[in-house]
């Protein structure tokens, strides 16, 4: 026999739970709103005081006092909001406030946390607010790739020898994001990078060398030339192609000679890169060699050679025009395509 009371009890229980949930949510919202209303004024005061202190119109102590009046997460919010827009003395002042307000100390502590996201937060805070020497360097070797990538960003702002070395080591990182972050950081480092980079290029090979060459292309100092020439013989085609790009930026007789040799590389990528580099260098005596590449088996090489010829002015255009009658229909085709480009079409009368 069915108890007719049971469904009603169930319904009542469910209704009670629903009411409780709604009440909880409303209570939380009211509490949050009350909390926000209560914090609004201190947050505004703290922002104002910190801003004035950064600007030199209030003391660091006043800013610290105002910051300390806030809960810790609000303290971080106020300081982190300002950080990206500041440089130089203002940034140093902000770093002082952060230090005195205990934010940096807390971040340094988080750097040693067992939880990866805490370490990540530590790296971010130090990148934003400064400091972190000793604590963040360690994170460049962190087991978490997210933390390593964030630490690399910090490293760009603190390019000590050890940091640079570690960043260069990160060029061989197995994960792409840390590698990318390391390259980006190294590019931003500039002069302090040169010496260790040359050392690395002198000994590296393969993909590590390829990544280092990519960084070196951004630096482009003549001191890198010997290493670039050496790496033009690397076993990895990508490395040889990267060396061609770098040589195209460096220029000079040695670079030209190497590039002319690379036009005959067994792999298409170095040949294409060498053709492009010779065009960028404006080395018109290479027109005959480049014309030969119009018959290359690879489209990219033919295209780069044709574009290089176009960029080399009259000698290149003259030979391109002659290539229109080449027996190799691929050579004739690429010549036609490039000569049909608007700027070349004005220069050359094609049949």
């Amino acid at each position, binding site marked *: 026999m069915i108890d007719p009371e049971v469904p009603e009890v169930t319904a009542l229980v469910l209704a009670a739970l629903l009411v409780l949930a709604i009440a909880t949510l409303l209570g939380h919202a009211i509490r949050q709103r009350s909390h926000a209303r209560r914090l609004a004024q201190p947050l505004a005061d703290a922002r104002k005081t910190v801003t004035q202190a950064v600007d030199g119109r209030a003391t660091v102590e006043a800013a610290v006092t105002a910051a300390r009046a806030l809960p810790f997460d609000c303290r971080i919010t106020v300081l982190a909001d300002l950080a990206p827009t500041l440089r130089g003395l203002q940034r140093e002042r902000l770093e002082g406030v952060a230090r005195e307000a205990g934010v940096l100390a807390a971040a340094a502590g988080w750097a040693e946390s067992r939880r990866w996201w805490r370490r990540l937060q530590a790296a971010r805070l130090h990148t934003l607010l400064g400091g972190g020497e000793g604590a963040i360097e360690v994170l460049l070797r962190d087991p978490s790739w997210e933390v390593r990538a964030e630490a690399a960003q910090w490293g760009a702002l603190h390019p000590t020898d050890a940091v640079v070395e570690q960043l260069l080591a990160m060029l061989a990182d197995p994960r792409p994001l840390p590698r990318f972050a390391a390259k980006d950081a190294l590019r931003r480092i500039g002069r302090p990078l040169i010496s260790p980079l040359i050392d690395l290029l002198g000994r590296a090979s393969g993909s590590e060398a390829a990544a280092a060459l990519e960084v070196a292309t951004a630096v482009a100092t003549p001191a890198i030339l010997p290493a670039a020439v050496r790496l033009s013989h690397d076993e990895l085609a990508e490395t040889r192609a990267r060396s061609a790009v770098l040589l195209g930026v460096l220029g000079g007789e040695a670079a030209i000679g190497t590039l002319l040799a690379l036009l005959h590389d067994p792999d298409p990528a170095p040949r294409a890169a060498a053709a492009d580099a010779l065009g960028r260098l404006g080395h018109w*005596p290479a027109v*005959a060699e480049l014309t030969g590449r119009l018959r290359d088996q690879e489209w990219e090489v033919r295209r780069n050679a044709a574009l290089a010829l176009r960029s080399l*002015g*009259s000698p290149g255009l*003259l*030979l391109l025009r002659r290539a229109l009658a080449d027996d190799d229909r691929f050579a004739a085709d690429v010549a036609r395509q490039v000569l049909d480009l608007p700027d070349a079409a004005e*220069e*050359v009368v094609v049949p």
Partner: protein
Amino acid sequence: MTHGGELNAAIAKLWSRQRPEMLRRVDVVEDAVAALLEARVEPEQLTEAQRAAHKIAGSAGSFGFGQASDRAREIELALRTGVSLADAPRLSELVLGIRRDFGPETGDGDGDAQRKQSSAIFDTTAFTADVMIVGGERERAREIQAQLTRRGLRAARAKPGDDTALRSDAPIAVVDLIDPLAHRFMDAAERDADVIVVGLANDAGLDARVAFARRGGRTLLPGDLAPREIAEALVAIRERLTENGARVLVVDDDPALIELVKGALRGRGFDATSLGDPVHFWQTLEAVNPDLLVLDIEMPGYNGVELCQAVRADPRWAELPVLFLSVHSDPDWVRAAFAAGADDFLAKPVVEDELAQRIDNRLERVRLLRDLAGRDALTGVANRRKASEQLSRLEGLARRYGQPLTLAILDLDHFKQVNDSYGHETGDEVLRRLGRKLQDEFRGEDVVGRWGGEEFVVGMYGMPCEIGFDRLEALLVNWKHERFVDAMGGEFGTTFTAGVAELPSTADSLDELQRAADEALYRGKAAGRSRVVAAGERAAEDVETVDIAVVDDDTALVDLLTHSLSTQGWSVRVVDDGPTAVAVLASEPPLLRARVVLLDWDLPGLDGIAVLRRLRDRGVLRSSRVVMLTARGAESEVLRALELGASDHVTKPFSVPVLVQKLRQVVGGR
């Protein structure tokens, strides 16, 4: 089309023909530059490229590609002084620039098609005839052709729709309108105002004539006219084309009045034609092509007012002065005459002087126009164009009637010195006086004209060479006594040299006659001037005499020059290398004698300067002037040529009209 326009069109045609060759030369230069860029260039290749660049530099400018010429000259200079890889970019730029100057290329097939088309156009110029017989029955057309040939006219036959007929340059076309395809030719003729179209039609009434005239026809002859009569009419039309005096057509049924008018006009040097029956009015009008029309009002068939209306209805006769003579002097007739388009009205009986004066007034404008077009302003004799036309007419007469035609070419001796020593005004006075003297001495059927510069021509119809020679000698004796006063009051005299030749004994054509007379003139000059020389002796010798010898190996340039110089009426002979030039010009005796030698500097075998030296050593420069054609602008080289005896130098590329003008001066300043 103006003369300049014709020349430009001719140059454009020549360019379309020469363009492939010019582009081939650019290819030669480009090959060398590419070889230089690819470090595989041979010295021979550079030499060949230099030669090609030289030719482009020399001729491109003359076709209107001045910038291409400049570029080619820069290439030539670079190649001559030696090039290295460092020069390759500039050379490449120049080659690409020349290609841009010459414009987009067409494929080989298109080029061939273009050349073929050009050739077809040029072929028509080779087709020359005086009369084109279009359509009609074959035997009849052949008979008309034979009749015309007997009368000294070149005649050709064609079908009405045939290209030959449409492209013919014959000034007269006789069209059988009975032919069903005649309208096709008439359509073409309607667009070509230069062709005089004579129609043959069964219906030759006034309506048919007006309709025919409106389609561009000039004369409508009855279709049943005998071939001999048709030929006579065509000869008359042909002669009208080349006649000198103003023509008056008098239409009146009163023979006495006709005689009166004729007498009045003859006394003033006009040619009067009379017509008694107005039924043949239109036919006569077309044949006579008068400069003034005198009409009687009352005539049998058509009255004068109706004829005048018909004349005015035809646009070609809208400007023809029409003068009425009539016994009807009442206002209605006078008003009707003027309403029909009369220019003047004179009542009979006519007072001879008044009539003559009125006609004279009406013809004054015609006379002025004729004088302007055909008279040399300085000397008063016919200009070269007019004299050539008259000589051509005399040639026709001489052939038709088996009469001799003697031609004399006179040239004032040392006239340049007269100008230099006594001034151009005095020089002009000498020319004026000689012109008057010639007009006094030679009248009637003789032609007296100024040939150019200080050169005159006299054509003596029906006169053997011996008599012409004697007349010239008598004139020379007389001329030697002529005294001229210079600006300082000093007196001086001049002489002339003349060459005399006769058609047909010493020449077969007018061109040959001129050449023979010219050559005799040269002999007279060479023999010491101030004499008259007959061409008879020279006829036995195998010496070709031309106005201009072009010594150049650049075929494009030679083609252009030959065309341009020939259109000026000069005979031209081309020699394309140095050794041949020496062989024909400086041999003893010479195989070729030229008044002017256009001598290129860079010639295969023997360069121009070496040829010039040989010409000087053999005394050729005493009778021939040498104009150096050179792409070299170096002062020292020009001076070297002038020191060796060159009269002038022209730097390539040159403007053809300017060169022609220079040649006129050189020929004239002999």
